[in-house]
């Protein structure tokens, strides 16, 4: 019976990793579709919305099932706790991807203002954080999530610089307000995704060591 539990938990971990990959893909491709004004790619992201929600529900239900059937202890319990929180954060990341894809479609008809360098750069940092934390979850190697606080600070700084930059464009020409407001929102989404990656890192740290830490 206990063996069955451990097999089930292993399978669940694998699915969380798949879900994580999907969330990251959604975010990454959304920003790509924005940058390249590729509406097809944006549609791909939008088409994944249901899938990630379904994964969230499915993993949650199976996790709760394991909890009630086996009442796990120690690291098993911490893994379950980590998974339950993680899937919420991953769903949020995926949904920000969806939000960005919607904007990408809306902004696809006219050229971008300036070169839009900082947004893909932010997305790159966030996606690398998500990759690292998923790998840490898989391998339990906590060195992978070291330096998350600095990476997150970097994201905050980038968001602020995008904000300032957009303000300037808007003041120069009020016609740019809609577009720039979208850029600012996207920068904000990406910053939030970085926060979610940090929250996942906290949960992974708890899963591995049993110790609660704050990464910010």
């Amino acid at each position: 019976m206990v063996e069955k539990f451990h097999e089930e938990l292993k399978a669940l971990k694998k699915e969380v990793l798949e879900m994580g990959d999907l969330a990251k893909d959604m975010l990454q491709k959304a920003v790509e579709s924005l940058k390249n004004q590729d509406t097809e790619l944006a549609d791909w992201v939008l088409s994944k919305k249901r899938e990630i929600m379904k994964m969230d529900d499915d993993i949650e239900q199976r996790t709760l099932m394991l909890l009630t059937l086996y009442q796990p202890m120690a690291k098993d319990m911490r893994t379950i706790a980590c998974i339950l929180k993680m899937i919420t954060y991953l769903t949020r990341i995926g949904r920000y991807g969806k939000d960005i894809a919607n904007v990408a479609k809306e902004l696809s008809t006219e050229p971008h203002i300036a070169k839009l360098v900082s947004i893909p750069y932010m997305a790159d940092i966030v996606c690398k954080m998500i990759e690292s934390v998923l790998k840490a979850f898989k391998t339990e190697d906590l060195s992978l999530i070291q330096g998350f606080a600095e990476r997150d600070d970097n994201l905050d700084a980038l968001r602020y610089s995008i904000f300032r930059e957009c303000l300037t464009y808007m003041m120069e020409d009020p016609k740019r307000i809609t577009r720039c407001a979208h850029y600012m929102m996207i920068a904000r989404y990406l910053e939030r995704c970085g926060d979610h990656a940090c929250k996942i890192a906290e949960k992974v740290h708890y899963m591995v060591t049993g110790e609660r830490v704050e990464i910010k």
Partner: protein
Amino acid sequence: MAKNNYIIEVEDLNLWYGENHVLKDICMKVMRNKVTALMGPSGCGKSTLIRCFNRMNDIIVNCRVRGKVFFKGKDIYSPNTNVFVIRKKIGMVFQKPNPLPKSIYENVAYGPRIHGINDNEKLDKIVEKSLRAAALWDEVKDRLEDPAMALSGGQQQRLCIARALAVEPEVILMDEPCSSLDPIATAKIEDLINDLKNKYTVVIVTHNMQQAARVSDYTGFLYLGQLIEFGHTKQIFETPQEELTERYITGRFG
């Protein structure tokens, strides 16, 4: 007065049944008015250990004990200890309910009687108080003269707890008190344990880890006669420090 918080203190306790070294260098402290749980696989020495706390092992032939067990600072294995007083102060409840083949009333009154109380009015009071404390009074108050054997398993076990409480112990040792009971009776005993710790100190041996996690404040894990880990229950079940404990409680054993 930190020392006073510990009602039982075990120092380097070793025990042999003949050649068989059953308990090895056990050191632990039982906090007053708390529930302490002992868990571990079958044959690890849990029951033997709690039976040392009121010298129940004395009656086993070939049993040898070395080390010290202090009850309120006094070594219970010292030659001038009165074993009867110890067993009155440290009561015990066993795995299988073992009521005496007498009425419900007599089961509870038996202890106080042999300790010299014969006044019927006084006995009535003790019986009611003990049955109330064991959460059984309302179920049996109208049939105190019925045979105890007619009660259900869960009621019998609560009767045994009432019987232990009747002699006003300070510590109650419970050796798997719920293992022969159904979930509802188990839940009642667990609620009872929670109530009891206001007045008593409880040490419970259990195979059921979830039960240990639910009812106890402190938990000890025994394996092959050694106390592998002892600490706050929350810590033992959330972040055990020892690899063996971790493996045992997550079922990765053997």
